[in-house]
């Protein structure tokens, strides 16, 4: 068996072990992971409505897939693809079969995957899964291979969103190196072009993309083990949100994980360094950046970057920058396993090291210890959508005013309000991030004005009209629902069920900012054109390294 298919098989097996409880049972709603049936293509996923282009272009691609497949199939296919791509990609980077198997398991089965899966960062997990493919293509390009495969993988990472693209591009540049400058510049230029679908909306957004400095502290990496911050990050955990830490991380299993990482690095880092010092540098750099928000002194630097540098907000959730380090550890583990497997005497140790990721993190199995659950939207959600569709034009507000919901039919888990993704209308929603003890401000100034007005006691209908809202869609079973319904009492009801209510706000409403279709045309059009040019154009002699024979003219 070849290494890639072996890694894919291991990735598939791990993916099935993790996702088995949810497969075929509806959509998974968990924190920021929100999928809705028959999602409309809204301005938010195109980047034309002036919102921060977080969903661009990843959710656009998922929504397009959901036009031809049931949304649950799309979601579960994407989540399974994370494991398969991660396993296959990592396996291809290690020479021996045993090591390839170990690298596949070591990269697909990490606290990092568990925590990002629970918090619902699925686009970013796709980027994580694409990273070994980017690195493989970058290594090949550095060794004189063709550049288009690297460009193709960078384009795929761009499709997985801004953070994925940033990490993939930075890692690729570390691997290919600065020389020849034409190749380095070509990679940078191509990366910019294929990321234009989110860069353009971010650049032309009125007011830019503001970042609340409170987010640097709130979203800094944290210890999720008894090993402290350094040990937590070294063992590839340390997410800021303690609620998304898989079971077992706070136990002695963390020590087992640390022993595994250290053994992998001691026995297997040298061949990884020999393959690419740039990759190891990217891993080390990612580790430092991941810790930076929580280290006195460095946190001030990180705060300055997040607040003042355009795009710096991508760094505030520092732990996600561990992705290259996770790849380095997995590859080192693979090389270590290859080395141990060569002698029959140490073969049992090879087996132990290969399966250690699973033994140290059993909490990832079975829906991350039962915390991922699947559900089907009740029929009244479709009823609400139909009522909005039939109503005259006008903006909708998602109420009660708050960012997260607990939906009893979806396991009562914390989840971003699905209404803005469900309704084929511009939907005004709170975008602040409430945490225990602090609220990290959002980016939508209109939402901030609503929050401020409600805090001063203004009447809800007046506040909404001033924000350009014509309809109020109300969750009736959330904290604050009763007060919201009282504030809207007497207004014309367009839809009503046990859980949902839609009312109209008669009278004049403020105008809403117009959509800007040209943003999507420019961004997506340039990216597609750039992708075609980068892949099809043949300039191998200019962009690849010259071989020793070419340098000497032999």
């Amino acid at each position: 068996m070849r290494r890639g298919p072996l890694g894919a098989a291991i990735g598939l097996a791990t993916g099935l072990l993790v996702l088995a409880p949810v497969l075929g049972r509806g959509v998974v709603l968990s924190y920021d992971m929100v999928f809705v049936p028959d999602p409309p293509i809204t301005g938010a996923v195109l980047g034309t409505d002036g919102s921060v282009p977080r969903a661009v272009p990843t959710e656009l691609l998922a929504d397009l897939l959901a036009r031809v497949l049931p949304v649950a199939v799309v979601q579960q296919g994407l989540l399974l693809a994370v494991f398969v791509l991660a396993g296959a990609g990592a396996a291809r980077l290690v020479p021996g079969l045993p090591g390839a198997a170990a690298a596949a398991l070591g990269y697909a089965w990490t606290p990092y995957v568990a925590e990002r899966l629970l918090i619902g960062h699925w686009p970013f997990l796709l980027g994580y899964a694409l990273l070994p493919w980017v690195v493989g293509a970058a290594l090949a390009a550095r060794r004189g291979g063709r550049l288009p495969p690297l460009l193709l993988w960078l384009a795929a990472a761009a499709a997985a969103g801004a953070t994925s693209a940033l990490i993939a591009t930075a890692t690729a540049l570390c691997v290919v190196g600065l020389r020849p400058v034409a190749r380095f510049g070509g990679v940078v230029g191509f990366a910019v072009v294929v990321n234009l679908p989110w860069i353009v909306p971010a650049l032309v957004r009125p007011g830019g993309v503001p970042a609340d400095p409170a987010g640097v502290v709130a979203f800094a990496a944290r210890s999720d083990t008894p090993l402290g911050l350094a040990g937590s990050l070294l063992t590839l955990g340390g997410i800021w949100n303690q609620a998304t830490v898989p079971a077992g991380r706070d136990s002695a299993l963390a020590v087992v994980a640390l022993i595994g990482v250290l053994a992998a690095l001691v026995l297997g880092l040298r061949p990884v360094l020999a393959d690419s010092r740039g990759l190891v540098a990217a891993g080390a750099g990612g580790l430092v950046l991941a810790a930076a928000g929580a280290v006195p002194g460095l946190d001030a630097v990180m705060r300055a970057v997040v607040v003042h540098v355009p795009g710096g907000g991508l760094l505030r959730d520092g732990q996600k920058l561990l992705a290259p380090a996770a790849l380095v550890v997995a590859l080192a583990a693979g090389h270590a396993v290859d080395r141990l497997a060569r002698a029959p005497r140490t073969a049992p140790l090879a087996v132990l090291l290969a399966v250690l990721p699973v033994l140290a993190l059993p909490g990832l199995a079975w829906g991350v210890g039962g915390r991922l659950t699947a559900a089907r939207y009740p029929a009244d959600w479709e009823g609400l959508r139909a009522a909005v569709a039939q109503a005259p034009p006008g903006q909708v507000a998602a109420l009660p005013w708050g960012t997260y919901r607990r939906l009893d039919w979806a396991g009562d888990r914390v989840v971003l309000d699905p209404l803005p993704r469900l309704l084929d209308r511009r939907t005004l929603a709170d975008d602040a991030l409430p945490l225990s003890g602090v609220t990290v401000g959002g980016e939508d100034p209109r939402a901030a004005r609503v929050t401020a007005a409600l805090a001063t006691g203004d009447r809800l209908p007046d506040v909404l009209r001033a924000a350009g809202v014509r309809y109020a869609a109300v969750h009736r079973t959330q904290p604050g629902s009763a007060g919201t319904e009282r504030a809207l009492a007497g207004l014309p009801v367009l839809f009503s069920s046990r859980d949902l209510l839609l009312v109209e706000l008669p009278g004049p409403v403020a105008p809403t900012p117009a959509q800007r279709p040209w943003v999507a045309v420019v961004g997506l059009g340039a990216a597609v054109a750039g992708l075609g040019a980068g892949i099809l154009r043949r300039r191998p002699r200019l962009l690849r390294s010259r071989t020793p024979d070419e340098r000497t003219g032999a």
Partner: protein
Amino acid sequence: MLSDERLTGPRDRGAILISALVAAVVGGLLALGASLVLVSSASNTNAPPVNKPLITYDQK
């Protein structure tokens, strides 16, 4: 291929591969069992809340 091939004989390789696969299956079953134990213990202690508190991003 990123490093030199330094493999053992075909028989050793087969044995190592089989033991790795067996270990992976055993490890997976162990993980499954442990997670089921964790799930059942968690469900015993976390009764559904009667009154929903303000929902924050860092709640479980």
